């Protein structure tokens, strides 16, 4: 979530400067107001600038992953596996065939796993895997509170979360999402989903202890709707 410090300083600074200008004999107040306004302006512009630089630098890693996945001929959506199915760490399986009924997933060793009757897929960590791993101690059997704890308290990624479960599908509405393009424009986004969808899918898979894929991501007003489908 963006900090409001810069905007607050700008408003206070502008108000002080106006009062100092109008009222005779308050020149020092006007200069202090101007100074606060300029500091607020710089704080506001600096917000997220370093973040963007880090994302740009690390996008090379995502380009490499993208090239690896494409060269292996794997262009299917990732399947978010709970840690119980992937050697104790939440992971994403990129299957070599379109996801049908995933069964008998067996990890050969990173980054390979077999599923169904001996088919092989890539087993990779996604941004969501890291989120789920960090939040693992605070996850409970209540999906909504687990998501809320993780996405709003431990990671400042959203303002609120509501969950609807129907059949094998889970729909998560993320209010006030902080949309960060962690992949730096890499095509790997099509496999993992956006950073928030990836985090949601990994947590849902971990809490419900079964594999999930991201069926759909859409914007609804200021919220992000993420539809997940259980597989296997």
């Amino acid at each position: 979530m963006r900090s409001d410090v810069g905007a607050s300083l700008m408003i206070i600074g502008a108000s002080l400067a106006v009062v100092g200008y109008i009222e005779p004999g308050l020149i020092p107040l006007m200069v202090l107001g101007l100074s606060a306004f300029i500091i607020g302006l710089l704080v506001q512009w600096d917000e997220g600038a370093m973040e963007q630089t880090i994302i740009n630098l690390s996008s090379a890693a995502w380009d490499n992953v993208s090239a690896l996945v494409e060269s292996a001929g794997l262009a299917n959506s990732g399947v978010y596996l709970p840690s119980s199915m992937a050697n104790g760490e939440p992971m994403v399986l990129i299957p070599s065939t379109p996801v049908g009924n995933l069964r008998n997933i067996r990890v050969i060793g990173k980054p390979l796993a077999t599923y169904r009757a001996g088919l092989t897929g890539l087993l990779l960590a996604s941004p969501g895997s890291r989120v789920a791993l960090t939040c693992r101690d605070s996850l409970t059997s209540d999906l909504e509170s687990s998501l809320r704890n993780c996405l709003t308290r431990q990671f400042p990624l959203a303002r609120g979360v509501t969950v609807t479960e129907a059949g094998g599908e889970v729909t998560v509405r993320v209010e006030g999402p902080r949309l960060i393009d962690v992949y730096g424009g890499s095509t790997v986004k099509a496999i993992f989903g956006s950073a928030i969808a990836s985090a949601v899918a990994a947590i849902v898979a971990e809490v419900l202890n079964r594999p999930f894929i991201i069926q759909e991501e859409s914007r609804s007003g200021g919220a992000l709707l993420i539809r997940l489908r259980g597989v296997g």
Partner: protein
Amino acid sequence: MLKDILIVQAALTGLTTAFLYYLGVHSIDIYISLYTLIYLATMTMAEPMPRRVRLLNMAIAYGLIAVFTYFAALRIMAILGVG
């Protein structure tokens, strides 16, 4: 990094303004000139800055220098008896 520099800048500006007020200075040009000096001196320590912050910094610096030059020109004109 930038935030540390801005805290130093705010502290210096506050102290200077309070001191000038204590001395009974009421002319805006002195306040603005000293603030310009503080701003330029502190912001040199903030390098390297992200590109968009650097552009904003340059715009603010040029603005402050323009105002400083205007006040300096008024003073020099007064001394020379011009205008």
